[in-house]
């Protein structure tokens, strides 16, 4: 019951967030100087032609009417038409969003799969050399600019060693899989196309590493401090006094309790990754929303930029919802109390 109530509350919150985000992006994109109609028509076009285009796009109408029209569309899932590509924004995003989401998820997987064990080891061997190494690594991860790291790994693994591709999602010679989930790693497997899968995997390694590296540090630090806290608790002493082995105490008792507060940090990291992907995608020529958005901004393509903001904040709220649901699943105290 508490579960359903929470979901209801969150869906309401989702509505408010989308409204807020659409309003802010709408305001900003219409207040910045620059005239998309002029941009489309070109420098040499007459004022008459530009005015025509304005009318076509509805840009001649008062702002509140433009916003109202936009909201009406939003309610029916219509994000408007891209000025630049002349396709529906929703179609464009559908084409690019899965690539970004796939990259972000693999980056998160990488950050957690490495960050959690590193955090645990770091806590267990607190102040020992291994802890110093992990902590240094964490700080390095958090403070390394993604584009710099991206260029670095491209130079090494693509340029010098020739081990991995330097950009794209799949080898040029291969046909991309038919979009079922939009995730190449899954679609290629579903089709049983092993070569395409291997190629997709190779392509995602470097960008996912680059994108995930920052969060590796965040996750390791979070797990370390949560573990240190749990290891001080009385129930740990009880477990030891009952004859539980050292690693039994660490993995079966301390870790599950340390993961609970860490779920939030890891969940919110996914939200960050979605935004952060823009930069990494640019470096790796990853055909996700990043490149689409950068191009849209340059073309003053309001509907496209707004669509991006709305979709990402939508995803952000959904991630939060999933985090809260996870909480209820793994922490018995919350599901009972709330």
């Amino acid at each position: 019951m508490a579960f359903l109530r929470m979901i209801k509350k969150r869906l309401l919150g989702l509505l408010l967030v989308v409204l807020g985000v659409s309003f802010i992006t709408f305001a900003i994109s219409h207040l910045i100087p620059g005239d998309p109609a002029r941009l489309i028509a070109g420098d040499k076009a007459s004022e008459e032609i530009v005015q025509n285009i304005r009318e076509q796009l509805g840009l001649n109408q008062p702002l509140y009417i433009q916003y109202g029209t936009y909201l009406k569309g939003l309610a029916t899932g219509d994000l408007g038409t891209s000025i630049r590509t002349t396709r529906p924004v929703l179609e464009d995003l559908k084409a690019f969003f899965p690539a970004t989401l796939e990259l972000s998820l693999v980056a998160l997987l990488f950050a957690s799969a490495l960050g959690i064990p590193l955090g645990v080891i770091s806590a267990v061997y607190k102040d020992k050399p291994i802890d110093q190494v992990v902590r240094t690594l964490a700080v390095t991860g958090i403070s390394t600019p993604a584009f710099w790291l991206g260029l670095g790994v491209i130079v090494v693994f693509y340029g010098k060693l020739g081990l991995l591709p330097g950009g794209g999602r799949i080898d040029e010679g291969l046909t991309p899989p038919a979009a079922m989930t939009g995730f190449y790693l899954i679609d290629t497997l579903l089709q049983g196309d092993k070569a395409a899968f291997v190629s997709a995997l190779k392509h995602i390694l470097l960008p996912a590493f680059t994108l995930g590296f920052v969060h590796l540090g965040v996750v390791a630090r979070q797990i370390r401090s949560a573990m240190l806290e749990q290891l001080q608790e009385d129930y740990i002493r009880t477990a030891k006094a009952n004859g539980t082995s050292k690693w039994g105490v660490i993995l079966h008792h301390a870790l599950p309790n340390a993961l609970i507060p860490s779920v939030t940090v890891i969940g919110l990291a996914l939200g960050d990754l979605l935004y952060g992907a823009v930069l990494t995608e640019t470096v790796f020529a990853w055909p996700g929303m990043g490149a689409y958005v950068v191009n849209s901004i340059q073309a003053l393509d309001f509907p496209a930029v707004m669509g991006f903001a709305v979709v990402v904040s939508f995803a952000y709220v959904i991630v939060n919802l999933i985090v809260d649901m996870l909480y209820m699943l793994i922490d018995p105290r919350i599901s009972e109390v709330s």
Partner: protein
Amino acid sequence: MTQNPVLSINDLSIEFPVYKGAVKALNGVSLHVNEGEIVGVVGESGSGKSVTSMMAMKLLPEGSYRVTQGDISILGTDIIHASEKTMRTLRGGDVAMIFQEPMTALNPTRKIGIQMTDVIRLHRRLDNDAARQLAISLLKDMHIADPESTLQRYPFELSGGMRQRVLIALAFSCNPRLIIADEPTTALDVTVQKQVLMLLKAKARELKTAILFITHDMAVVSQFCDRVYVMYAGSLVEAGSTRQVLHAPRHPYTRGLMAALPELATPGSQLQAIPGNVPDLSRLPAGCAFASRCPSRSDKCNQKPVLTSIHEATTHQVACWHPALQEELAV
């Protein structure tokens, strides 16, 4: 006497290295617990009771302490030199522990049932079902009304008294020869405390389990223990049967503790606490540690007194140059 000690500590000294020196937490402590016996260790906060109990199971964080002299033997095992593996089979097996804080002593995110069967299966060759049955019967023995549903619960769903019963049931789960209980009921309110202690004692008597019972409460000692040691600043100052020590205390410190008991004070009179404070364990005096607070101190107290029998034919021992005479007793 031909009794076998399950636990014997001989002349044990422990210190904690700290910045520029060491906290001398235990200073030449010797005590033993015989089979099936309930032995109390009583003393003020900071006197070294928990260090004694943790050290007996080698549960102090490795590297945080130094054993400067003495040894500990449990059921013939030399604890100080025992491997971690040996200790693990003892812990929760032949020797169980119960701690003060029932609210936090159980893992908050695991059900009671799993926490119990985990420990049972760690030490006994039982399948899951048999372990569950055992857990149910242990909870029944602790007078828990519906053991089956208790196993399905999380610690936060139980009251403090219930949790402590679970912990006691757990302590008995592998038929221990010795239970070390460090202030097991201090966090509970008085009526619950009494119930829980009765259950603990009844079960221990039934199974002939020995208990080393740590407390700061003389009233609890008088109800619960066969023998008692009085600890002060990491040394034992008096030892004997509960009757001897509580009804004829010889050490000025023990007498002070007794006088501080509310039920012994005459109505209207002030609660008589012992004036002064426990000495700094990193700068202990060479002589008697209690001297600075002692009403009957003399120059002789600059030498450290050792625990000796008050006369030849008794087990009542005191470490004092000026023990009180029996005739002076008020109780």
